[in-house]
């Protein structure tokens, strides 16, 4: 049954339904409803919540809980996610499954608390030190928040990878009707006995570790990790195309900005301009093939990447288009949000 859910609380309940029983977090706007909700909800279902002393500590608690075999999560917003990066690198290095939510606010520095998408580089290119990527999802509605969160724990377990879900202050705070999927039976979750360190008495040590001091060992590990990323790219890359079949002007946008672009596409088409939208749902792996395919279409005149940043994803769009068509950028930042009319005007004037 659909209910009216606030974005942050919908993520929290979807995580519980997915079998997440441990959450560790630290207050920061605009994601506070996630820890607030889970602080009372998790004990109800036999789980636990710790308000950690810092973001650094919270992500290391995730390392501990995930290492012990549990479905664990943390959430934060941009400055707090910066603090988590060391821990995310360790989680990637130790091949632990977990989910990290970033309700992005504007930066750099303390920045502002209004919506932004300035953490794209940090989220998709690794963020912390060393060679790794989290799998990154960018939902654009509350129902999609729910579905992706519910699925994210499965994906994390399947590949033993950190999964990051990025939204923004707007998506986290707004309310929409959404349906939470059925509560998972913990007995049906993947068996992690082979590697999880929860105190075995079978004489074989389980070790949660990311140190590989021998160069060859570490290189071999990185090769294996990146082989895994290839499989993830094959199986998990997701995107949505909206009216791109005959489009001459294609917006590329994710998250809340994609919804604004959709409205602009409708408006442009009402004016007889054939616009369309490619909406990456996974930001890593990136749906480059979908963009590349459209770049080869004769009728496509240009791509317009729209972001609430100074232009970050636009680099991946350019890589995918690979010079076949012009790639332009339209951005607002600082917490400002573009209106569909701004995009309509931009396309009309640039025609």
């Amino acid at each position, binding site marked *: 049954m659909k209910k009216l859910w606030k974005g942050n609380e919908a993520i929290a309940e979807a995580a519980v339904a997915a079998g997440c029983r441990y959450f560790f977090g630290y207050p920061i706007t605009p994601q506070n409803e996630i820890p607030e909700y889970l602080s009372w909800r998790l004990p109800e279902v036999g789980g636990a919540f*710790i308000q950690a002393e810092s973001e650094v500590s919270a992500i290391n608690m995730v390392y501990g809980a995930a290492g012990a075999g549990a479905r664990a999560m943390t959430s934060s917003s941009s400055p707090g996610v910066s603090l988590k990066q060391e821990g995310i690198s360790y989680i990637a290095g130790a091949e632990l499954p977990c989910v990290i939510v970033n309700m992005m606010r504007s930066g750099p520095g303390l920045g502002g608390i209004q919506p932004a998408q300035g953490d794209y580089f940090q989220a998709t290119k690794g963020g912390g030190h060393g060679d790794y990527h989290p799998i990154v999802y960018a939902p654009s509605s509350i129902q999609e928040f729910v579905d992706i969160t519910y699925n994210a724990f499965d994906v994390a377990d399947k590949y033993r990878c950190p999964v990051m879900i990025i939204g923004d202050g707007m998506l986290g705070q707004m309310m929409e009707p959404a349906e939470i999927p059925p509560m998972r039976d913990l007995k049906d979750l993947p068996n992690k006995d082979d590697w999880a360190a929860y*105190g075995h008495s079978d004489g074989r*040590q389980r070790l949660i570790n990311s140190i590989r001091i021998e160069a060859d060992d570490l290189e071999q590990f990185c090769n294996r990790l990146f082989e895994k990323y290839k499989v993830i790219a094959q199986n998990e890359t997701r995107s949505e195309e909206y009216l791109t079949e005959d489009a001459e002007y294609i917006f590329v946008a994710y998250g809340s900005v994609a919804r604004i672009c959709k409205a602009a596409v409708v408006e442009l088409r009402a004016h007889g301009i054939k616009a369309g939208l490619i909406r990456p749902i996974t930001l890593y792996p990136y749906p480059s093939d979908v963009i590349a395919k459209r770049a080869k279409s004769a009728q496509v005149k240009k791509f317009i990447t729209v972001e609430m940043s100074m232009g970050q994803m636009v680099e991946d769009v350019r890589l995918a288009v690979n010079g076949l068509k012009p790639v332009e950028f339209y951005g607002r930042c600082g917490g400002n949000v573009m209106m569909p009319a701004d995009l309509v005007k931009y396309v009309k004037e640039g025609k």
Partner: protein
Amino acid sequence: MKIVADKPKMLTDTPLHYCPGCTHGIVHRLIAEVLEELGKVDNAIGVCPVGCSVFAYNYFNCDMYEAAHGRAPAVASAVRRVVNPDNIIFTYQGDGDLASIGMAETVHACMRGENITIIFINNGIYGMTGGQMAPTTMPGEKATTCIYGRDPKVNGNPVHMCEMLATLTGPAYIERVSCYDVAHVLKAKKAIKKAFQVQMDKKGLSFIEVVANCPTNYHMTPLESMNFVKEKGCTFYPLGVFKDITKEDK
């Protein structure tokens, strides 16, 4: 042939990488002996730090975590909530790990009164990285980042962890020991045993500080370093029990 002394079951056959004369090996053995005596070898979980004991997981054969620098108490706090309450959880940390980069994690795990045991090796120097000043380097003591000796006016003051943590409500048992001679090794063993007993009784956090040596970075022979610990270390960091709620209970 009769075996009169043997290696504890909890220790692996991997040769220790520690420098000759370092007391890490002694403390590892004490932990293993104590857990064996308490019948907890089969369900212990250890969290090792970044520092000289970064490879401690090679020596203990129980399930282990290698934590990021300073974060062992945070990792252990989360593990505590996931695993069976009867599992013994310990962290093993040096002074840079526990009292510098991990100070917040240490203090907050103690504030929460986590039912875990923290073994703190305090030799007043960064051993693994080559002898830099630690949060517990004593005034006047030389290190590669205070080559004329620690000057509190320039380098700040060292911290007495047991005394500080004893001001908190959370911890159940706090004791400082040393291993510079046989009598003190035996006392240290008693303290570690009590610490694990406190955890088994679900009384909360137990914290054992071991005033330790670092012959390599002190530029001393093992014996000289032991004398240094005895005369200087244990004077500046007095041994004893700083908190014991089991006594308060009686």
